């Protein structure tokens, strides 16, 4: 049976490097993707995903098991780091340029995907987080409710609202040029 994040964290605090490595392997990729979708920059995402673990192993890590899961804490740290980056100014790098060897790149509409990325980044945190976790990370409503610390009903309603906003954006993008010019 795999050890829980919290158990790995406790071992890690006692100096168990294997536990730290396991925690890193388990959570870093999703944190990177979360940061990528939120910031729109792979460079920022790399930095954020790395910094989350730097902070976790630092003496200042304030994770309190009684207040929520470690996963929730890690997303919270990532969210705060991205806010700090955003306050420093706009991120120039386009997300699509960051992906090398994109096999599907020629087959899809880059414009639509890029526009959707922008729309996602511009959403309020509460909507964007549920879209990323539910639809891009394909996590269950239960998991997301635990991560964001809200009831399942709230997660579902936020997701539907967020999708309605994004659908409207897509609809606008798909509208024929003559309609848009009116």
């Amino acid at each position, binding site marked *: 049976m795999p050890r829980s994040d919290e158990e790995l964290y406790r071992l890690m605090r006692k100096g168990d*490097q294997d536990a730290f490595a396991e925690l*890193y392997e388990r959570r870093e990729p999703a944190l*990177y993707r979360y940061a990528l979708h939120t910031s729109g920059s792979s460079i920022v995402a790399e930095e954020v995903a790395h910094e989350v673990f730097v902070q976790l*192993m630092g003496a200042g890590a304030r994770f309190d098991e009684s207040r929520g899961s470690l996963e929730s804490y890690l997303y919270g740290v990532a969210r705060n780091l991205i806010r700090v980056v955003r306050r420093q100014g706009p991120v120039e790098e386009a997300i699509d340029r960051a*992906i090398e060897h994109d096999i599907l790149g020629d087959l899809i509409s880059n414009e639509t995907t890029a526009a959707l990325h922008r729309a996602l980044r511009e959403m309020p945190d509460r909507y964007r987080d549920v879209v990323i976790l*539910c*639809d891009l990370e394909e996590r269950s409503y239960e998991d997301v409710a635990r991560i964001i610390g809200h009831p399942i009903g709230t997660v579902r309603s936020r997701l*539907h609202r967020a999708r309605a906003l994004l659908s409207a954006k897509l609809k606008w993008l798909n509208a024929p040029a003559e309609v848009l010019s009116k």
Partner: protein
Amino acid sequence: MTCKERIPEIVEYARRRAEPDTETRAHLATCSACGERWETERQLTSQFRIMRIRAAARRPLEARRESLMRDFARKHKHAPMPAWVWALSAAAVLLFAAVLGHATRNRVRVNAVPASPAIRTHGVRTQQTILYEASTDASALSGDEDFIALPYAPPLAAGELIRVVHADLDPDVLASMGIDVDPSWASELPADVVVGEDGLPRAVRIVDNTQF
């Protein structure tokens, strides 16, 4: 069921890339607004899939991972001591403190014993009682107007331990200390004498001055 009530169902079908049930399909065929929403929701799901695949294409940078692990190893270079080592260390500290406390108490007691029970009053020994001990200096002593500083007495060193002793002093002894003595004084006089660490008197205070 109204269109508003159907929207959550439509969204969930689109998210799961599932075919709607017969009733919903019939509604979508007749309601243009819901039909349009259904199409954009499906498109959204497709776009999310593309975004997901693209983001998943990334491989974590090995160099970053290695540097993180090195930092971790450096921070935890010294393995944490087991609980029993902490307990043993605490016991050792307590034992050391107890021994130190005992030794200090003994030292104080040694200091409290007068090095010279008698005031070296030019060979004349008197009956005396130690009133108190204090660390002082000559200037502090001279500030006390009740005490008469003895002439020719060597000065007290700063911080020197002095004792104030009570004694009945013969007028001749007082005279030998350099105190002006009235020839009419016949009996011994009760006095407090400040004595230095060397046992030599430095000042005298006549307690019963009815004879002055």
